[in-house]
């Protein structure tokens, strides 16, 4: 919303400079975003007099004018269609700065030297209109500064109001805040309406069929108006409120709306189609053409103003094309109604139209402000259009909306705010806001209907602090609340997981969680999806049901940007829809993805990232959280390559998947290099650390290390070999590790050589060589038996 600074000054009597006025209003919750001067590009213009106008040889669009500037008589080339000799015009001479910082220079056009410009509104930054030059009144003093002559030195204040503040959607509304900030008196416009003896009730009847959506509908009849251009003072005011003047009738309805916040609509009575107004809900499928020429198919969410037969306006949103005021209009049916804000919201959404009217009605107008609005507009039509106002308002308002009375306890106000305002001051603020304050102790505050947002005591408390300013409250903390601050296990888990994985060289990624249904289905065709009903784009139409596709998108993005060595993880949620309320699931998961090569330095060569980089990181996590060891059970997952696809097991429970991403699927994301990925559900893992905490006593007796090397069939899993050794050696085997693995020309084809290092130790005494040798034999025998292993270097 835009308002004129001069207007606010007039209504409030507050004479703060424009910027300060904007700032002070902002600090009172009436947010003023910008302050812009109206006359910035008019400063150099003066009143000129077109003395002569003549043709230019060889040019039919442009003419040569002699303009008297008071000081000089200058030759000017002008192309405006409406320029004529004898006119007083807005003239800008050489050096004048016009809109878009255009500076006028002397130019030669078709052999004529032009020393200035006769200006349109657009060139002076007044509006976008450049259909013709501005023609001033004949008595305009030649040579006078245009800005002085037009009294146009004003500022436009642009407001961004919060949706609760319907009351401040007008000059009077904002002036009311100014008055409250300064304890001045609001200067409401005074006027005297003269009615003819013909009763308006003879010209129009009003019936409301839907009183819930339209509790009040008032009409006036104005006869014999002459439609034409509004006087300058009115056009000026509209321009300084960012509004384009149209014709006196329309300008008046706009002006009154800007002044008091109540939207009005003027119908051409002769084009109205009947002498009755019937307000009803639109019927399903009913057609209506709004005055912007758009045809709409309606439903009962739209409230229709009709002439008893068909729609003439979408109530509170926009008028209809057929009953619009035209140049030849003589009789006006002036509407001032109160509409239910929530109906307006549904209606304007249905129609897809937001207007100055709808945004005011939607925030709530004053049902009892209608008399002022309709009388004020009728008065102006009488004054400015020669209208004759018929007697009385035809007013359908069967159940009056009354003012609320709210109890207000000054001590409660101070208690909530932590302030120490006096009761007197609070009373004054509320009265300055035009609320009626009575009584002592709990004050009885009567809230006028222009403040529908004030419903409770707390709303009045806000009014007090809004006007008094937040600076009037200290920033001291008196309450401390609980002293013991718990940290949730899931936060510890997330923090530790990030510490471990970044320590392993993985970078953390973060996805927004929305993804494409087709992408999700490519990787997990059988998983249900949570669809977004109003997606922002087709590519983000579901909530993800796996972290894998989004991780691969990130991998693909990096490869596309030539970062081909990637080591990423993410902790994030996946979503599953259900039938019943408690079926809806959000599951916290962890994904790890590697591709490309490990970093290299002068000591270590790069090598391709592989499966073991993932299991290594998982094992570091298991170690940290003291989980049991992960195991990897071959099983085909839809998104993994069959030849390397395992279920990730923890404690014999499947917690996720690990393996190599299916090449074909990866290629669909532009990835042409192998990617290893693991995804696991962590919801069940979060609590395990506390349970596993404990301590192994430090060993007292010495360790006896032994190595054993075997050759076995290539297909024997290393994990099984380690298990066999552990089983054979029992409690005496402290650690069993593989320290060498070999396949190749030195041994038989289809076989591998594995070397293990076993550390024996007893908790109860030193082991003798014989004891250890005995163990080694047992270990060797088991390996021979279980795997047909050949023991080397016995």
């Amino acid at each position, binding site marked *: 919303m835009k308002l004129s600074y001069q207007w606010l000054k007039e209504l409030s009597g507050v004479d703060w400079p424009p910027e300060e006025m904007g700032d002070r209003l902002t600090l009172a919750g009436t947010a003023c975003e910008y302050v812009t001067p109206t006359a910035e590009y008019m400063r150099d213009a003066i009143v000129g007099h077109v003395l002569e106008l003549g043709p230019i040889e060889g040019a039919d669009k442009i003419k040569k004018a002699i303009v008297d500037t008071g000081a000089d008589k200058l030759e000017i080339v002008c192309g405006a269609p409406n320029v004529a000799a004898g006119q007083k015009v807005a003239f800008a001479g050489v050096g004048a700065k016009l809109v878009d910082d255009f500076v006028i220079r002397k130019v030669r056009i078709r052999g004529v030297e032009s020393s200035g410009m006769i200006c349109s509104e657009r060139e002076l930054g007044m509006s976008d209109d450049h259909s013709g030059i501005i023609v001033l009144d004949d008595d305009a003093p030649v040579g006078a500064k245009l800005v002085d002559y037009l009294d146009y030195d004003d500022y436009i204040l642009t407001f961004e109001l919060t*949706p*609760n503040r319907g009351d401040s959607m007008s000059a009077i509304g904002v002036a009311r805040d100014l008055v409250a900030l300064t304890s001045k008196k609001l200067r409401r416009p005074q006027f005297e309406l003269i009615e003819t003896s013909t009763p308006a009730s003879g010209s129009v009847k009003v019936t409301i069929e839907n009183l819930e959506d339209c509790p009040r509908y008032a009409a006036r009849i104005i006869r014999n108006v002459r439609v034409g251009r509004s006087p300058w003072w009115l056009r000026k005011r509209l321009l300084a409120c960012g509004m384009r003047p149209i014709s006196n009738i329309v300008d008046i309805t706009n002006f009154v709306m800007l002044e008091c916040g109540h939207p009005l609509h003027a119908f051409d009575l002769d084009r109205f189609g009947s002498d009755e107004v019937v307000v009803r809900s639109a019927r399903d499928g009913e057609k209506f053409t709004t005055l912007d020429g758009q045809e709409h198919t309606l439903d009962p969410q739209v409230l229709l103003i009709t002439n008893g037969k068909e729609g003439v306006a979408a109530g509170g949103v926009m008028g209809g094309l057929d009953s619009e005021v035209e140049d030849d209009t003589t009789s006006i049916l002036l509407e001032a109604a109160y509409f239910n804000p929530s109906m307006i919201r549904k209606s304007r959404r249905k129609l897809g139209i937001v207007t100055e009217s709808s945004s005011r009605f939607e925030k709530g107008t004053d049902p009892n402000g209608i008399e002022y609005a309709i009388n004020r507009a009728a008065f102006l039509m009488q004054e400015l259009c020669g209208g004759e106002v018929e007697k009385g308002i035809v007013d359908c308002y069967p159940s009056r909306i009354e003012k609320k009375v709210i109890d207000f306890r000054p001590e409660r106000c101070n208690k909530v705010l932590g302030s120490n305002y006096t009761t007197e001051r609070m009373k004054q603020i509320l009265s300055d806001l035009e609320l009626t304050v009575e009584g002592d102790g709990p004050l009885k505050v009567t809230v006028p209907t222009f403040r529908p947002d004030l419903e409770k005591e707390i709303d009045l408390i806000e009014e007090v602090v809004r006007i008094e300013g937040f600076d009037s409250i200290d*920033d001291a903390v008196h309450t401390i*609340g609980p002293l013991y601050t718990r940290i949730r296990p*899931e936060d510890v888990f997330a923090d530790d997981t990030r510490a471990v*994985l970044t320590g392993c060289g993985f970078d953390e990624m973060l996805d927004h969680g929305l993804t494409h249904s087709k992408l999700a289905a490519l990787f997990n065709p059988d998983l249900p999806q949570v669809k977004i009903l109003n997606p*922002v784009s087709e590519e983000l139409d579901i909530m993800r049901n796996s972290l894998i596709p989004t991780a691969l998108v990130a991998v693909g993005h990096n490869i596309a940007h030539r*970062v081909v060595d990637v080591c990423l993880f993410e902790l994030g949620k996946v979503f599953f829809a259900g039938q019943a309320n408690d079926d809806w699931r959000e599951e916290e998961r962890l994904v790890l993805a590697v591709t490309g090569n490990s970093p290299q330095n002068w000591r270590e060569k790069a090598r391709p990232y592989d499966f073991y980089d993932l299991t290594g990181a998982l094992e570091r996590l298991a170690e940290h959280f003291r989980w049991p060891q992960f195991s990897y059970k071959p099983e085909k997952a839809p998104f993994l390559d069959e030849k390397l696809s395992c279920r990730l097991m923890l404690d014999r429970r499947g917690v996720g998947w690990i393996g190599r991403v299916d090449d074909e699927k990866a290629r669909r994301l532009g990835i042409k290099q192998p990617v290893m990925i693991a995804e696991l559900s962590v919801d069940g893992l979060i609590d395990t650390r506390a349970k596993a905490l404990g301590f192994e006593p430090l060993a007292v007796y010495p360790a006896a290390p032994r190595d054993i090397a075997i050759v076995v069939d290539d297909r024997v899993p290393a994990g099984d070999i380690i298990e066999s050794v552990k089983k054979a050696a029992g409690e005496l085997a402290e650690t069993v590790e593989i320290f060498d693995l070999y396949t190749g020309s030195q041994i038989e084809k289809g076989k591998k050589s594995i070397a293990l290092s076993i550390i024996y130790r007893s908790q109860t005494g030193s082991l003798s060589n014989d004891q250890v040798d005995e163990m080694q034999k047992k270990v060797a025998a088991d390996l021979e038996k279980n795997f047909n292993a050949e023991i080397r270097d016995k």
Partner: protein
Amino acid sequence: MTLLEEVARLEQEARERISKADSLASLKEARIYYLGRKGPLTAILKSVKDLPVDQRRQVGAEANKCRVQLEAEFTEAEKKFSDTAPRQLIDPTLPGTAKRLGARHLITQVLDEMCAIFHGMGFEIAGGPDIETDYYNFTALNFPPDHPARDMQDTFFVEGDRLLRTHTTPVQVRVLEKQKPPIKIITPGKCFRNEAISSRAHVAFHQVDGFLIDEGVTMADLKGVLVAFCKAFFGEGLKLKFRPSFFPFTEPSAEVDIQCFLCSGAGCQVCKQSGWLEILGCGMIHPNVLANTGHDPEKYTGLAWGIGVERPAMLKYRINDIRLFFNNDLRFLRQFI
């Protein structure tokens, strides 16, 4: 300037270079510059023969004295770098070989930093689902049905009459349903808004909302908590400005601007010359929210705020495109190890 003055100036300048030199190479470079065959001192010595007789002697002597003096000082200074350093067993300048660390995502870091500050003030973390019902996201938070306040938060709707939470404040309702005051909670997490993706807006963002409910909690406490937070997060000595605003779930409501920490309020490109940055919304919990969850709004009052994570992160790290947070481009992520 006379030649004598020029000699004195050169001498002084060379001394400064010697005292500031941080390597043998820079000393050698300076020596060549001042004393080399093409240096200014040599030039002066060469030009002595063209001088009037009465000046020749004096200028020649001074320039020569200066050269000898500087030669000695350079030699002395060079010793510091060459002679005193003991020979090393290995080349210590080869890059170290510790394993590379991964980077936490910047949003995680900023979120954790914010949580740690509030944790230090005694706030505990609570969480809730990303997919919410209208009740928790709007109705219980005092958004009337079909009220323009709902337009302040463009909402994604999902099937099953649900929506993606537009703020983390629904967690407040969930906590209030289960706990009795005093309650002191922060609710960090992801939220969603149906906005076209651009450099300034994304479909998802993170928030750290918080609230404190007890008997006697006041707006002064709210200011106290937020002033303390801003000091810890943005730095000391920055002014805050509380502007009245509107959120259905708080009353009174305010938006908080902080003095631009990049220009200290003088006005710069980031703060659009205003000297202020909009950083958070706050207010006293609306009595309706307390009543909706079975708490007596006469007995208890509460303070609440909501601060985004992306925007402060962008301001603090001068990031100009919010999309960088979700692109997962390693060239970005790895800047924040």
